[in-house]
């Protein structure tokens, strides 16, 4: 494995369940944690629906993968960004979204919720700062 540290940006623009992209994208994030890169997750457009609370696909015969997002803090993911305009267009607020905690077991440092709602200029800045953008 390489010594290079790259800034990874996972760009999530698709809703869950209607297609598998959200779930298989999350699988990359989980595997990618082993590679010690700097990881940012960005949810925009219909991708913000991936983080809604209370998902229950038992009635459509699918697996609920929503709890996995809550474990992201254990996978070295410290930054999860959500585009504010995408939420607003969908009548959503941060209250509709999962809370994802993060804790560093070595330093006792912890963050109650690493999900941050950001404005458009910040979204652009995230894209500009990334070394690699994963799209699904």
């Amino acid at each position, binding site marked *: 494995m390489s010594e290079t540290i790259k800034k990874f940006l996972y760009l999530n623009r698709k809703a869950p369940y209607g297609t598998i992209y959200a779930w298989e994208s999350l699988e990359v994030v989980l595997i990618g944690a082993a590679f010690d890169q700097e990881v940012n997750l960005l949810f925009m457009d219909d991708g913000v629906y991936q983080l809604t609370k209370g998902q229950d696909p038992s009635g*459509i*015969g*699918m697996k609920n993968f929503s709890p996995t997002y809550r474990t992201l803090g254990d996978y070295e993911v410290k930054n999860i960004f959500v585009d504010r305009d995408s939420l607003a267009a969908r009548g959503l607020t941060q209250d509709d979204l999962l809370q994802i905690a993060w804790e560093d077991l070595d330093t006792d440092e912890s963050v109650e919720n690493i999900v941050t709602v950001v404005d458009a200029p910040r979204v652009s800045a995230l894209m500009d700062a990334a070394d690699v953008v994963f799209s699904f």
Partner: protein
Amino acid sequence: MKFALQINEGPYQHQASDTAYCFAKALLEQGHAIFRVFFYHDGVNNATRFTTPPQDDRHIVNRWAALAEQYELDLVVCVAAAQRRGVVDEGEATRHKKDATNIHPRFRISGLGQLVEAAIQADRLVVFGD
């Protein structure tokens, strides 16, 4: 009432096959009938017996096969779409010199005429896709 179903997308990638399955199950439980389920476009990928989803996930192919077994459904895969995407039965394997097959035995490969016929014979055609 007699239904025909058309499924345009493969398993897992899109919800189409899941929705069609839930719809099919509901209509059969109500006493309606299914004249034929026609798998078209990437829908032909619902017919492979090679699928092995994670153990905690649904098995889309086996689920269709079991429903077909229970209600004697006709599950038809479009031959032209199947050739493009690599779904083969014994006949296709022989014709195109493939060394094996991958179709699940509960499905059969046939022509597009089967879709047209289903649309004519059934009271309702319901299409599921992307």
